């Protein structure tokens, strides 16, 4: 690598750092994204200009095909399907890492790491690690995509001896890497790929749908480490820096998500949480009947109060209710009601998912507040309007030590003067725990599809 190209790679690394820095505020975020694009353009330009790269035509064709596919998908995708899209994109980074490592193995001269059959051990280890992480990212992301898209069941799939099997495959991969470094034959390279594919698949399968925010963040992190691993093979600092940035970003996001559920990362990773099993095991039947309200009541009350906090959850996204909800908020604002939105860290299927959906529906971002910012205000609020959220409002998380969600930070919806709870039926949330809030005196249930209920409330407000 010449000095000049090193300098360009450094510039592009700095631009990547700036692009993340820009996301500290919505006003600087778009500039940040531009820095990211610029950094990528510089990195690609520098590489294409390097003396070893000569097949411009083929590269251009491959690049344009990929670019067209990527742009088309990104322009057409619905914002509710964002988590699936991100998972699918992660899988591509993983697969690309496998292919790059593979071509480094078959043609080490192009990467300056010796000749076929006599690659230094250090490079082989780096290559093998990059391959393994890339392959795990690939199949893991495919399963995550399937679960989010509904192709694979969102329920955790568990079987006996699962963790033991994973452990064995883990050791097999380590053994294969050791053997690969000694014999340097292609068979072992592909065996590493296959074993890593298998473990990526098995790791994500037992994890339930609502734990996907953690998993998508984790895979985001993996795709970064895969890039860093390839960076070591290529002796390229840009790949290492970028890989570390992405890797730590994903790790921090997983941490935030885990904290939002008061669960350890291992607990999520071991899987089997929630879904039908948890409902069955919780056992005791609940005969209490919640009070039921109707949309007209809700409309009347909200119109005549002074402040409303809306608590959206994944159910809102499923019902595509964000536009109707914003319309409802607009009418209330016109009536002089203060309307704000409260977002729990794990609402939705990826970090920040609700914020994007509300932004898509033209809700200004300064009306959308995080748990820490708004939680105290519930006690001074007249109406809390919960739509498509459940577990994150359950007061049992604070009081009931036996509850599966005990200790999880919740939105103190119960403290509001009146709670309206929009829900399709009485089914419990992801954690399989009955929500105490339903039976409080100040709670009225509004049964029905989230979007329809919003539309009915709007009708009520207009009359």
């Amino acid at each position, binding site marked *: 690598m010449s000095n000049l190209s090193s300098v360009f790679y450094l510039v592009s690394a700095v631009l*990547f750092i700036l692009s993340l820095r820009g996301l500290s505020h919505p006003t600087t975020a778009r500039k940040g994204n531009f820095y990211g*694009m610029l950094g990528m353009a510089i990195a690609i330009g520098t590489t294409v200009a390097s003396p070893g790269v000569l097949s411009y035509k083929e590269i251009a064709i491959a690049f344009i095909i990929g670019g067209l596919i990527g742009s088309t998908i990104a322009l057409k995708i619905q914002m509710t399907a964002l988590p699936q899209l991100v998972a699918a994109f992660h899988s591509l980074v993983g697969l690309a890492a496998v292919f790059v490592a593979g071509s480094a193995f078959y043609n080490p001269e192009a990467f300056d790491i010796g000749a076929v059959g006599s690659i230094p051990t250090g490079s082989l280890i780096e290559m093998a690690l990059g391959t393994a992480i890339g392959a795990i990212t690939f199949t893991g992301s495919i399963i995550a995509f399937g679960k989010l898209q509904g192709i694979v069941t969102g329920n955790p799939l568990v079987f006996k001896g699962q963790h033991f099997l994973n452990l064995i495959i883990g050791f097999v991969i380590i053994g294969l890497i050791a053997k690969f470094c000694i014999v340097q034959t292609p068979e072992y390279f592909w065996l590493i790929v296959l074993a890593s594919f298998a473990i990526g698949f098995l790791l994500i399968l037992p994890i339930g749908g609502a734990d996907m925010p953690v998993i998508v963040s984790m895979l985001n992190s993996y795709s970064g480490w895969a890039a860093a691993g390839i960076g070591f093979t290529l002796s390229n600092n840009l790949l290492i820096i970028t890989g570390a940035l992405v890797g730590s970003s994903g790790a921090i996001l997983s941490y935030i998500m885990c904290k939002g559920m008061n669960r350890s990362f291992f607990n999520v990773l071991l899987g089997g949480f929630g879904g039908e099993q948890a409902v069955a095991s919780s056992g005791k039947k609940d005969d209490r009947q919640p009070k039921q309200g109707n949309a007209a009541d809700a409309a009347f009350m909200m119109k005549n109060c002074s402040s409303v906090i809306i608590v959206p959850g994944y159910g809102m996204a499923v019902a595509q209710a964000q536009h109707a909800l914003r319309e409802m908020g607009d009418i209330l604002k016109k009536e002089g009601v203060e309307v704000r939105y409260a977002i729990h860290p794990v609402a939705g299927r990826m970090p920040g998912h609700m914020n994007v959906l509300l932004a898509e529906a033209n809700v200004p971002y300064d009306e959308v507040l995080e748990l820490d910012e708004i939680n105290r205000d519930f006690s001074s609020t007249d109406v809390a309007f919960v739509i498509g959220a459940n577990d994150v409002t359950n007061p049992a998380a604070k009081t009931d030590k036996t509850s599966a969600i005990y200790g999880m930070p919740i939105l103190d919806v119960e403290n509001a003067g009146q709670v309206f709870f929009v829900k399709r039926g009485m089914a419990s949330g992801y954690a399989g725990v009955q929500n105490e809030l339903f039976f409080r005196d100040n709670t009225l249930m509004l049964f029905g599809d989230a979007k329809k209920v919003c539309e009915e409330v709007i009708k009520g407000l207009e009359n």
Partner: protein
Amino acid sequence: MSELSNQLEKLSYQAQEISNQASNLAANLAETSNGHGDFLVFGFTVLILACFVGYYVVWSVTPALHSPLMGVTNAISSVIIVGALLAAGPIDSSLSKIFGLVAVTLAAVNIFGGFVVTNRMLSMFKKKQ
């Protein structure tokens, strides 16, 4: 007043010392970066430092923008295209070159997809009028 100027003098002395140390460190790093065998240590240094940078930068990202953050990190992790381009570079065709071209295509899907979808998300975030 004189106390202040004294302190200033001390401070400038310290600054000079630090800069001396930094340039020594840089010289050391440059020495170790010669040849591939030594790159492991150098690369590892870069990796750890970059992790710290990432840690502080990512914690300063506002939670409302965590989805765009994933979009951007997804796009920039495709910087792996650098490796793909080197692999696809040689004129004569080989298995390794085909792998490289496939990787270029995959990474390009990600780069464009990641940046475009992030841009779409960010363009929706608006302030109250």
